[in-house]
């Protein structure tokens, strides 16, 4: 099973990296991109009997390690087969 974990900074936390990326995009000619928040993306290969179990495990490891609850929140997507293309 593959679980995808998207970790993002909480809205209240200042994101200097995201701001820098947004500024760079403006310089490149994309004023319509008004904001950028930078986060992390993890792909977990999990041996689990069901998508629910995989989700539970992904959630646990996200709480324990992948996300820092003081500054980050996360969401999880689970697929049980590889999606087409890379």
């Amino acid at each position, binding site marked *: 099973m593959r679980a995808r974990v998207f970790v993002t900074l909480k809205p*209240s*936390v*200042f994101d*200097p*990296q995201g701001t*820098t990326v947004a500024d760079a995009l403006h310089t490149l000619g994309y004023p319509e991109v008004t904001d950028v928040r930078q986060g992390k993306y993890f792909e977990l290969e999990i041996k689990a009997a069901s998508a629910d179990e995989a989700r539970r495990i992904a959630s646990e490891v996200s709480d324990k*390690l992948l996300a*820092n609850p*003081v*500054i980050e929140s996360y969401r999880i997507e689970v697929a049980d087969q590889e999606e087409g293309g890379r």
Partner: protein
Amino acid sequence: MKFAVVVFPGSNCDHDAYYAAKHVLGQEAVFVWHKDARLGGADAVILPGGFAHGDYLRTGAIARFSPVMAEVQAFAAAGGPVVGICNGFQVLLEVGLLPGAMLRNRSLKFQCEHVYTRVEQTDTPLTLACQAGQVLHLPIAHGDGNYYAEPDVLAQLERNRQVVFRYATRDGQVTDVANPNGSANNIAGLCSEARNVVGLMPHPERACELAVGSADGLALFESVVKSVAGLRTVA
């Protein structure tokens, strides 16, 4: 007294902390490998600077799970002095011995330079030998020293006098220009509610001899010695 310097894979400033404690201060010092479950009868524990586990994922995020950390937490719970320097501070934050988290410096760059730090509280093991308001010339060297805590946590820290060091100007003014990394409230170091666990981003072990740029860090190490002597007298 005996200092225990914890060594994680990727710690770099362990040697510097050991050298300061043993060769400059003349105290006993031992290295404690992260897989050890014992602190070897230490009177004070130092979590040194460096890049534990390469700072991968987040600074200090993986080190907090090392076997030795259970022992460090027990030591802290029993009132023992624990000092987290730079990466060590980050480990203390991740493990929850201190509140808040570190973000990337607002410059987005690693910064190595001497800064001025004002001592805010003198009733911690790291500042017992200092004066309130004393300004110390200490080096920083970090990419993730921008301290963050939610507003209510910050307010509580201030109320409880848990902010131990603040970035300041040479004459002790706490200004934004004096803030090298964007830290909330110019916070350079904090202590726990029980006040025996202290974390700071500046490196006192790099400021124990004038030859290397400043000797203002000595007072912090001397504070630990004084604090331990005090504990012994009480015990």
